[in-house]
């Protein structure tokens, strides 16, 4: 008899998730049909290659994954404005890129975001092409803000979901501002409360906010069906989605999403206890968010873009107080759920490497940008799977020859005996055909393990 999920070990859960990943399904639950037996074999080989490097075994060759937001559509001939507002253009450009370049894994086209949904909700955390930045801009850009105020810590700590619903959402989305008028759903405890607790839903501005949510929902439904069609098409050709779920370090939840860089940096001095308590509350939420995506997508990989833990963004003492223990708790939680955390470390993390030794072996993937790769291989090659380090500057301004030389060195040094994925270290919005082709084609040829 098959074991129940909660009785399985972390390793058994992970194997089950990898098996799911290797057998993609359609939304209706039937097997996804492949275009050809070769495409099916290619798909399975790509998942196996990923599994091998995560288990720190030597795969057949160095796997290739390009970290990107708008680069695929850019190289496929469409601007971010086009693909954020026209899913047909997203489909044609993204698919063209994959067919032309053929990396093993792709980062979901959903990362491009949907301009119509942002417009309807009046999203404040971003400026996107045609909304705050020029229509021909190569990407969207973040706007830092204090969406949570210093005095909000007790409310966040007491009830994070209620805080998100009635305080964060109204501040982060202009159209949802009236949601601050609704009462906590936990007020609903006996018949006497039924009437009173729904009164706010009779207030016209609240009703407008709910309409905005429904309109956004309609757009989202049409959009996600297209995303599903794009990804289904790519998988049927043998390409593999690079991640199932996504989450963040608890500190980054506070820093990027809620308090802003300046706010959180000052909080570490003025109210350290509040910061620590808030992160304790966020840890299980972060695990649930990441593992939930992995389950829904039938893909064990959970992507974690790291932000404020990079070298220089805090002292070692602050890192070991405010960043690492909480991040580690999230990673261990994900691993226990059978997920593979894939950490995306833009910038450099040279001063943080020793901490990674504390992690369970052969369980996490770390995509580095500007860190010291030779040192990482030596120090952590038997603990973590390593990826990345092809510089954005080289991709955008370099030549094919320079790219080949760079990749050769990475394969020789970091790829030695496996445990490495060829990747760039930052989420690209643009690229140069010549260098991107060189990176992929050269790795396929030179990166074969004998």
């Amino acid at each position, binding site marked *: 008899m098959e074991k129940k999920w909660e009785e399985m070990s972390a390793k058994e859960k992970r194997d089950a998730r990898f098996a799911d990943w290797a057998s993609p399904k359609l939304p209706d639950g039937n097997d996804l049909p492949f275009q050809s037996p070769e495409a099916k074999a290619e798909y399975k080989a790509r998942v196996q290659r990923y599994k091998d490097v995560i288990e720190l075994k030597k795969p057949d060759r160095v796997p290739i994954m390009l970290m990107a937001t708008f680069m695929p559509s850019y190289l496929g001939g469409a601007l971010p404005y086009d693909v954020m507002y026209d899913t047909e253009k997203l489909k044609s450009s993204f698919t063209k890129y994959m067919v032309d370049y053929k990396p093993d894994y792709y980062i979901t086209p959903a990362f491009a975001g949907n301009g119509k949904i942002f417009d309807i909700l009046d999203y404040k955390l971003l400026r996107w092409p045609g909304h705050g930045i020029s229509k021909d801009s190569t990407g969207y850009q973040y706007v830092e803000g204090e969406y949570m105020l210093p005095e909000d810590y007790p409310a966040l700590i007491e009830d994070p979901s209620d805080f998100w619903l009635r305080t964060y959402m109204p501040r982060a989305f202009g159209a949802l501002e009236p949601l601050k008028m609704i009462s906590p759903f936990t007020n609903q405890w006996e018949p006497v409360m039924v009437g009173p607790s729904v009164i706010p839903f009779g207030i016209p501005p609240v009703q407008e906010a709910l309409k905005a949510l429904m309109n956004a929902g309609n757009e989202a439904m049409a959009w996600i069906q297209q995303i599903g069609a794009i990804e289904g098409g790519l998988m049927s050709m043998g390409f593999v989605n690079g991640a199932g779920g996504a989450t963040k370090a608890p500190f980054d939840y506070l820093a990027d999403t809620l308090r802003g860089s300046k706010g959180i940096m000052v909080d570490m*001095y003025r109210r350290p206890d509040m910061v620590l308590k808030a992160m304790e509350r966020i840890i299980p939420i972060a695990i649930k968010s990441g593992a939930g995506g992995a389950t829904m997508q039938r893909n064990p990989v959970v992507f974690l873009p790291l932000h404020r833990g990079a070298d220089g963004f805090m002292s070692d003492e602050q890192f070991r107080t405010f960043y690492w223990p909480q991040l580690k708790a999230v990673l261990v939680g994900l691993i226990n759920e059978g997920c593979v955390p894939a950490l995306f470390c833009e910038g450099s993390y040279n001063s943080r490497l020793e901490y990674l030794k504390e992690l369970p072996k052969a369980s996490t993937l770390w995509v580095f940008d500007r860190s010291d790769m030779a040192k990482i291989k030596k120090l952590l090659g038997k603990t973590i799977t390593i990826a990345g380090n092809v510089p954005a500057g080289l991709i955008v301004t370099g030549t094919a020859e320079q790219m080949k030389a760079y990749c050769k060195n990475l394969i020789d040094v970091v790829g030695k005996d496996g445990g490495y994925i060829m990747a760039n270290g930052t989420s690209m919005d643009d690229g140069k055909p010549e260098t991107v082709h060189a990176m992929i084609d050269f790795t396929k040829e030179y990166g074969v393990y004998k």
Partner: protein
Amino acid sequence: MAKDLVKTLADLKEKEALEIVQSRLKAGGSPLRILDDARRALEIVGKRFSDCEYFIPDLVYSGEILKQITDLVKPKITKGQEVKRIGKVVMGTVAGDIHDIGKDIVVFMLDVNGFEVFDLGIDVPAQKFVDKIKETGSKVVGLSGFLTLAFESMKETVEAIKKAGLRNEVKIMIGGGQIDDQVKTFTGADAYGKDAMEGVKLAKGWIGG
């Protein structure tokens, strides 16, 4: 007494530093002297940042404390304070890019190291750099950028400076996110600084001081 404020602020003791300022003002102490002490304290903060003793949160926090001190002192100041500056630098995040954290750190470090910095802000069109160089006679220009789109904007800014006939009058340094030597060559800038300290070193090397 004077020494206390410098040390407490440099050590980022917010409450104590503000108490010292308040009691000095109450006792009729010179507001300009208080600001001068604060400036010396921030020089120490900058030095500790250069020595990797302090990190970005320490800079941000010191700036927050300084803001409060300035708020307390400002109403009592009657005439402007003369600070001797070693040179002028025009700084900004280039067109299309709205990131400011890195640029602000360089501005902070140049300022505490004695430079007069003209901070043009974010998403700065090339012409605005040209105009500011003409207006101020600055000898150093710092172009900041976080995104890869900044490579092209930096190149265009360098070209605009060249077209205005100012290329030989200024030294141009670039930095931020994904900037490296490869990008420096692409943009035609004179140098790339991997962090704020490098930026200060470059400016000092060009201007002296």
